């Protein structure tokens, strides 16, 4: 033992430093894939790297999808990476940082909020691929409403095949309605009927009950109220072009004549009297305690509050069904209707699909994945639960909502069929800055007096000018 202690005691400083050096080299070598970012999916090999918004669990949930794809294309390796984010705005910030760092993925699952940003700067048009594989894709376009496809067009080119979508419909807690002796409103109800309905619910339910809950964001906030009043906070025009798609795939569709090359939002419209009128209507709801003052964000606690009967109504899409079911709501405890009409009954929707990046290593392989993901078998795997609404009409059926509700689930797809002018979220390439400009002025506009509302509209116009880069 003595000799061992002596041996330890004989370790020189040089030996200790040497050991430390070896240790540092060893740790560095072991961490090399991380330090060089070589462990990022798809980097360093020929894998098709796909980025989605979500958690690691969301990426893992796509394993079946990837496995099914590899049965058809065993030569294309696919890696899915999830980016966790608060909302789409946050997702795009993180993705742009990846792009700036030279870690651009090949495919990105992008919602309407980012379609024009990607189309303008990052994504590859799909036109040549779609035209090349027209025979295969005709079946897809036959099943998907043209409004959803048009939302993925920018200046005449198609950038994504829409796979899932959601409109801002109106959800009701049926218990709250029943307590007030009310039933689900008729399809042709209007904004004044809505106000009366909220008043009745308020009187019949307790003091801690909120008849109408809404959030302050681009989807489902103030925009649906602008759309039904035949206006928006941005001037909307249609880009020319796109006839190749409408005349090719939708020639039998009666609405194809009114289709064009996608929406453009290039100037603010906050000073339109109808915009002020819509804001004033919402201000009245807040003032009379019929609606909440909207906080910024997506309303994370909304499902729980709605399920517990503390909220009577809120705008949401088909994505809400699974959440309410998991929160314990029975199929007859909630229902959904169209948004009320005002000057029109134009609804707001958002959709999403894969965009091929301009920098994709193998665009043909990327297209094969996009095309396969739009096939019915793939979509049935991807959208097995009502966590969103599939873009294929044939998949929005009794089976999807069976045992979960709502009773009037047909409202989801009928929104497009009955109101063909229903339009996408107003999201120009400067979406993040535009959304910030909108959000920051909504609270002020609906929570003060008439003078404050007018000032908020002026401020919104000014902020939108800046956001759109017009100053």
């Amino acid at each position: 033992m003595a000799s061992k202690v002596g041996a330890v005691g004989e370790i020189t400083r040089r030996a200790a430093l040497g050991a430390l050096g070896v240790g540092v080299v060893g740790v560095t070598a072991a961490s090399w894939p991380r330090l060089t970012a070589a462990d990022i999916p798809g980097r360093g090999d020929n894998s098709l790297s796909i980025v989605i918004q979500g958690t690691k669990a969301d990426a893992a949930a796509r394993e079946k999808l990837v496995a099914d794809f590899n049965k058809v294309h065993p030569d294309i390796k696919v890696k899915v990476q999830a980016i966790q984010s608060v909302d789409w705005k946050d997702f795009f910030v993180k993705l742009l940082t990846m792009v700036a760092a030279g870690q651009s993925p090949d495919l990105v699952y992008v919602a309407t909020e980012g379609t024009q940003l990607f189309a303008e700067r990052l994504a590859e048009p799909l036109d040549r691929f779609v035209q090349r594989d027209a025979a295969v894709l005709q079946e897809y376009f036959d099943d998907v409403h043209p409004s959803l496809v048009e939302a993925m067009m920018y200046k005449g080119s198609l950038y994504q095949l829409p796979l899932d979508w959601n409109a801002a419909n109106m959800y009701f807690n049926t218990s709250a309605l029943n307590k007030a002796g009310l039933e689900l409103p008729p399809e042709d109800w209007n904004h004044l009927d809505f106000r009366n309905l909220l008043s009745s619910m308020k009187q019949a339910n307790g003091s801690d009950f909120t008849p109408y809950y809404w959030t302050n964001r681009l989807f489902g906030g103030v925009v649906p109220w602008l759309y039904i009043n035949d206006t928006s906070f941005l001037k909307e025009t249609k880009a020319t072009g796109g006839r190749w798609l409408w005349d090719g795939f939708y020639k039998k569709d009666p609405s194809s004549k009114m289709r064009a090359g996608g929406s453009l939002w290039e100037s603010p419209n906050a000073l339109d009297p109808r915009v002020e009128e819509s804001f004033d209507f919402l201000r009245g709801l807040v003032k009379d305690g019929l609606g909440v003052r909207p906080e910024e964000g997506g309303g994370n606690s909304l499902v729980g509050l709605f399920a517990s009967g503390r909220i009577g109504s809120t705008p949401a899409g088909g994505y809400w069904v699974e959440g309410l079911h998991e929160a314990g709501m029975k199929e007859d405890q909630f229902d959904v209707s169209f948004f009320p009409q005002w000057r029109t009954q134009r609804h707001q929707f958002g959709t999403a699909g894969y965009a091929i990046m301009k920098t994709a290593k193998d665009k043909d392989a990327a297209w094969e994945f996009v095309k396969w993901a739009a096939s019915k078998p793939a979509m049935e795997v991807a959208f097995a639960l009502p966590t969103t609404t599939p873009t294929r009409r044939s998949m929005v059926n009794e089976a999807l909502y069976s045992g979960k509700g709502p009773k009037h689930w047909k409202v989801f797809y009928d929104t497009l069929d009955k109101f063909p002018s229903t339009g996408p979220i107003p999201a120009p390439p400067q979406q993040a800055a535009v959304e910030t400009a909108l959000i920051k002025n909504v609270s002020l506009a609906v929570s003060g007096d008439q003078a404050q509302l007018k000032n908020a509209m002026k401020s919104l116009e000014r902020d939108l000018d800046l956001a759109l880069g017009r100053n």
Partner: protein
Amino acid sequence: MKQQRWLPWVFLAPTIAGMGIFTLIPIVASIVLAFFHWDIISAPQFVGFANFAEVAQSPTVQVSFVNTIVFVIVAVALQLGIALGLAVLVTEKLPNWLRSFFRSALFFPLVLSAASVSIFMKYLFNEKFGVVNWILSLLNIPSVPWLTSPTGSAAVIILVYVWQNFGFSFLLFLGGLASIPTETYEAASLDGATGWRKLVQITLPLLSPTTLVASVMAIISALQVFDQPYVLTGGGPGDSTRTAVMVIFETAFQRLEFGQASALGVILTIFIMLITAAQFRLSKRFVFYQ
């Protein structure tokens, strides 16, 4: 010995490399970027001082700097006042074991993530469903739009920030109080000094070096406030709680104007340096060293 001249550099190398890569290079890059137009995707373009001129004229930038200054004045005053008061109370009135408990308990909020705390507070202060308004309703006080009115949201942000940060100043003051010789207080007692007089004429003057350090650190930290307003209110309603660092973030990552964001960063850094320099200059008149 001559052979081992390299040895200190070996030990310093990791720190120098870390500081270089993670501090020095980003600072220099940020200063350089302030003179370019860069949207993260296209190649940067030299624009001279245009970014500085642009941000100086922006009403949002002007409002955010005013908001930040008001926030610093109120939050730092509260933070130092509460920390000092509690430090004096804990030192004078509590036994050792309880003092240790409070030292840990009051420091604890600082180790929590500001974003997590803010998310939690957002629930508490929700106008319709929050616990705070529910408690007020039990006292027949009408609900307050904490996060959706300019005054309410500013108050909540200051409250959350001070709650989370005063623990650090508290620890500094505890250390400062421990270094004041007890003989000074004993001599004052023999001369008939009361508690208040001892506080004003002994404690505060002898604590002034600690107060200087605490205030410099508190002001630098408060000038960079971001997490609380970003999570709690997103800068709203309107621009009422938008701070300078929030505007830097939005300019860079939402408007993709990285050059303008860098220019704002440079302006804020110069602003912080000027305030700190002013504090040290004033300290010659107000700080007493034993």
